[in-house]
């Protein structure tokens, strides 16, 4: 039964991924203006050079042909040449990806470590002072513009208190040998504690900035579902059996209350992926988000196109995995 349902959902991915690809392709194709001319603007290109670039980019072919070519190349991870870097787009993106993944993972961890305990405490002490504080805190969390909050954190901790670095992902002197591209992992692998400390110090403020809105939302979800679970009969039964409060919360309530948290966390990765662009710009983080923003200003469209597609596909897959996880964790879902 389950494997059939799993297969159905897997098949549902196909039209969604196809549709996403069509939209990304159209985004870059149907807009007014000739990409070749835009790219060669300010370079005193002759009409022949423009025509030659148009041909190289396949712009002289029909839209459906170009779409088929685009998909064929995209499946192989081939997105053409990054015009600004004069290197393949895929290589440029691969170089920047670890920093973005590292930042997103740190933000996700921050959000979960903030949200789950606070949500549980708020639900258990419903209406109390901690609940009120958590509610007000979560309202601030969803209302704070990330780019501004990041600047305030920089002003406080990097500029005034001088506790943390102002920008970048690591200081040059502490750069670990590059094995995976993930600075934290590379530092550990090389046994360089100085690098690890330096990388984590750089990571702290961007991760908090990026994770805060997510923490606010997850806190409210955890609180609401915890309240729901605490009303259930099996909790009353556990209490009647004389089980300790902590034991009930940890073993019986939390496990079930976390299901919605997992689902919403997956949905909110969308805001993490988008927030990367803003947070990386504020903190000078050498990741994909900042690269996309920079690429827009130098009209490096093949890179923007590839990155938008990568973000969307990642998002679709994360949601799919969360959906599966939910099904596996929740015995009540008999698909």
């Amino acid at each position, binding site marked *: 039964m389950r494997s059939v349902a799993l297969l159905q959902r897997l098949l549902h991915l196909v039209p969604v991924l196809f549709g996403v690809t069509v939209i990304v392709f159209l985004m870059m194709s149907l807009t007014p203006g000739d990409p070749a001319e835009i790219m060669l603007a300010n370079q005193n290109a002759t009409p022949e050079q423009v025509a030659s670039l148009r041909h190289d980019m396949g712009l002289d072919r029909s839209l459906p042909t170009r779409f088929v070519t685009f998909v064929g190349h995209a499946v192989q991870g081939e997105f053409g040449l990054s015009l600004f870097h004069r290197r393949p787009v895929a290589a440029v993106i691969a170089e920047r990806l670890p920093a973005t993944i590292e930042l997103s993972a740190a933000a996700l961890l921050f959000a979960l470590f903030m949200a789950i305990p606070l949500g549980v405490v708020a639900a258990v002490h419903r209406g109390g002072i901690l609940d009120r504080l958590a509610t007000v805190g979560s309202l601030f969390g969803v209302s704070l513009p990330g780019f501004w909050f990041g600047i305030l954190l920089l002003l406080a901790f990097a500029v005034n208190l001088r506790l943390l670095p102002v920008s970048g992902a690591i200081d040059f002197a502490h750069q670990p040998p590059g094995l995976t591209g993930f600075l934290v992992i590379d530092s550990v692998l090389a046994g360089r504690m100085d690098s690890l400390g330096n990388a984590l110090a750089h990571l702290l403020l961007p991760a908090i900035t990026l994770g805060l809105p997510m923490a606010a939302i997850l806190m409210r979800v955890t609180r609401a579902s915890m309240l729901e679970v605490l009303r259930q009969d099996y909790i009353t039964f556990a209490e009647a059996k004389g089980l300790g409060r902590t034991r009930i919360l940890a073993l019986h309530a939390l496990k079930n209350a976390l299901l919605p948290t997992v689902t919403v966390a997956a949905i909110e990765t969308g805001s993490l992926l988008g*927030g990367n662009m*803003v947070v990386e710009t504020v903190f000078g983080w050498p990741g994909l988000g900042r690269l996309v923003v920079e690429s827009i200003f130098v009209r490096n469209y093949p890179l923007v196109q590839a990155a938008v597609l990568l973000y969307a596909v990642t998002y679709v897959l994360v949601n799919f995995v969360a959906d599966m996880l939910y099904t596996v964790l929740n015995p009540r879902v008999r698909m």
Partner: protein
Amino acid sequence: MAELLPGRLARLAALTVLAFVLMAAFAPWVAPHDPGATDLFRRLQPPGWMEEGDWAFPLGCDALGRDILSRIIYGARVSIFIGVVVVLIATMIGVAAGLAAGYLRGWVDRVISGLVDILLGFPYLIFAVGLMAMMGPGVLNMVLALAYKEWVVPCRVVRGETLAARETEYVEAARAIGASSATIMAHEVLPNILSPVIVVATVRIAQVIILEASLSFLGLGVQPPAASWGSMVADGRGYILDAWWVSTFPGFAILLLVLSINVASQAVRDALDPRFHD
């Protein structure tokens, strides 16, 4: 939530939102200075209460010597305009699409729901950035870029509510007396599902305002010399060491407005829809 946010707080929030709206509407009369007037002698002048400050420019001046308060007042126009217009357009499209999908079902539902699923595949800001990169900056393009995706939110809500309303007795009754689908959707279903639509719309205005500010911060939104809160924060970034006020006050304006909308919208939600209570 009602027990946690006393009525007084909700009223205060609603009044704050109203103050922002009035400020935006009457900007030319409220603003002490021309938001675009530069004066290099007042470059990075501190706020009134600081040394070297001047109370004629209470929140200080930016790098071109423009009055920050006046720019914040004019910036409210951009934020509120985009927030309201995007949500309005999105709600109209979303309600129509959601009603059609939920009531008519069949291929109409499959097409609309398929489109919704695809658009949900894009992280919001990424989608907007991709579109803005192609269309170029500007207020109209930003409204389009945000509305293209925003309608999905009311559409899903309306579709769900319509599916439920479809099976109710009053809809059955209307169908029995031979009312057309369009009539039933407009006169029977729509009035009964309006509360959640209004609740969602008020919350979304706050989110759209943050998205607009983020796009403008990245340099993809409203273009200079027009004042937008997001671009004002971006302008001030370069002077954060010497002039903290340039970035701080516009960002605070965003926080205050968005927070007030969020608090006020919870009161709206509690008033309109008892199901949302904890």
